[in-house]
């Protein structure tokens, strides 16, 4: 009697088997409360490790640095037009996608120009040592790969701010020190211009904390509308959805960006900037 159950049982087990979860390399808001952890250094902030479960065991996971890309493009180009998810491994990028000109391959195709140079192509066949070196420009996790762009040199003359990358990206753009492109030929959809969105104040639960002046205008200039609505902010009526700081520190609502990529919410005064009316 028992042996007749062996086969179906084995089949059930076989189809339900999943690879054991790898320890995550990036996870905002997950740490043991009550201790002060290490904070990422300015060049490390915004770093995303992609492809831990890469099929090709010969290549290390990809180390993606936000700082170099955000100095050239708005958030919208990558996260709406190209379609990157905002979580590591959330897009399911494969080498085939890149070779066909999607995701990283939308720009990293050997043809797109950056200044007077062409952007190196990603995920091409590895035939020569030079090809292998090119793979390691991205697949560099755990390797001592010398990057073409040096953070110290890059950020030397940019206006400074606290935490995160230590750079005031907004001021840098205002002063013309960086130019964030919002439209990439062949990828972006030609859109009508955006009506100026109104800024508004948000009141915190804790009475003694200053109000937050949320600049809709600044956020839409870089993100457009669909990056945040409705996925990150689904409330339809202003003031009805309550977000707590715990939500934010754990990567929800404002924390979707402002925990690992945009200026971190550790900098209280950047948001809580309106004096409380006495």
């Amino acid at each position: 009697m028992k042996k007749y159950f062996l086969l179906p049982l084995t089949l059930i087990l076989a189809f339900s088997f999943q690879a054991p979860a790898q320890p995550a390399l990036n996870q905002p808001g997950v740490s043991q409360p009550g201790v002060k952890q290490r904070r990422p250094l300015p060049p490390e902030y915004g770093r995303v490790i992609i492809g831990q479960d890469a099929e090709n065991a010969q290549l290390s996971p990809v180390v993606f640095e936000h700082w170099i890309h955000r100095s050239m493009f708005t958030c919208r180009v990558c996260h709406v037009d190209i379609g990157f998810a905002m979580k590591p491994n959330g897009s399911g990028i494969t080498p085939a996608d890149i070779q066909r000109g999607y995701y990283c391959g939308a720009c990293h195709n050997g043809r797109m120009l950056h200044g007077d140079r062409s952007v190196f192509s990603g995920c091409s066949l590895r035939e020569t040592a030079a090809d292998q070196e090119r793979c390691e420009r991205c697949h560099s996790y755990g390797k001592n790969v010398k990057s073409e762009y040096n953070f110290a040199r890059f950020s030397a003359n940019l206006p400074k701010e606290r935490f995160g990358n230590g750079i005031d990206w907004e001021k840098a753009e205002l002063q013309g020190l960086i130019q964030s492109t919002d439209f990439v030929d062949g990828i972006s959809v030609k859109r009508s211009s955006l009506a100026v969105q109104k800024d508004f104040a948000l009141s915190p639960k804790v009475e003694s904390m200053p109000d937050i002046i949320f600049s809709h205008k600044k956020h839409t200039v870089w993100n457009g509308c669909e990056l945040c609505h409705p996925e990150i902010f689904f409330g339809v009526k202003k003031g009805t959805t309550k977000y707590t700081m715990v939500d934010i520190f754990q990567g929800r609502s404002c924390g979707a960006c402002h925990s690992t990529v945009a200026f971190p919410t550790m900098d209280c005064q950047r948001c809580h900037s309106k004096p409380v009316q006495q």
Partner: protein
Amino acid sequence: MRKLAIVVSVLVCTLAWPQQLAAQSQPQANAAEQQAFQREFDDVCSRTQGAMSLTRDELKDLVRRCDALAPKLAKLDQSQRKVYKRRLEQCRGLYAYVLDTRKDSDQ
């Protein structure tokens, strides 16, 4: 008992078979169909910036057109399908969201 075991085994095999096979068995879109999809997508999703100034009827129409595009995703190649699924989600999501905010108003 033996028959039961065989029946269960067969059921498990058929039910647990990956769904990708079903998707892959659909014929891929030819170049013309892909271009048509692209044109329609670009037309529908180019209006997200101005969503706040569209009327309810216009928004409903855009949502309907997004829904009409969704089944055509299955005919695209794997990479395109992934990318456009996400983009369509965001685009449709925004129109539906803006429509939601107008629930109580006349426009």
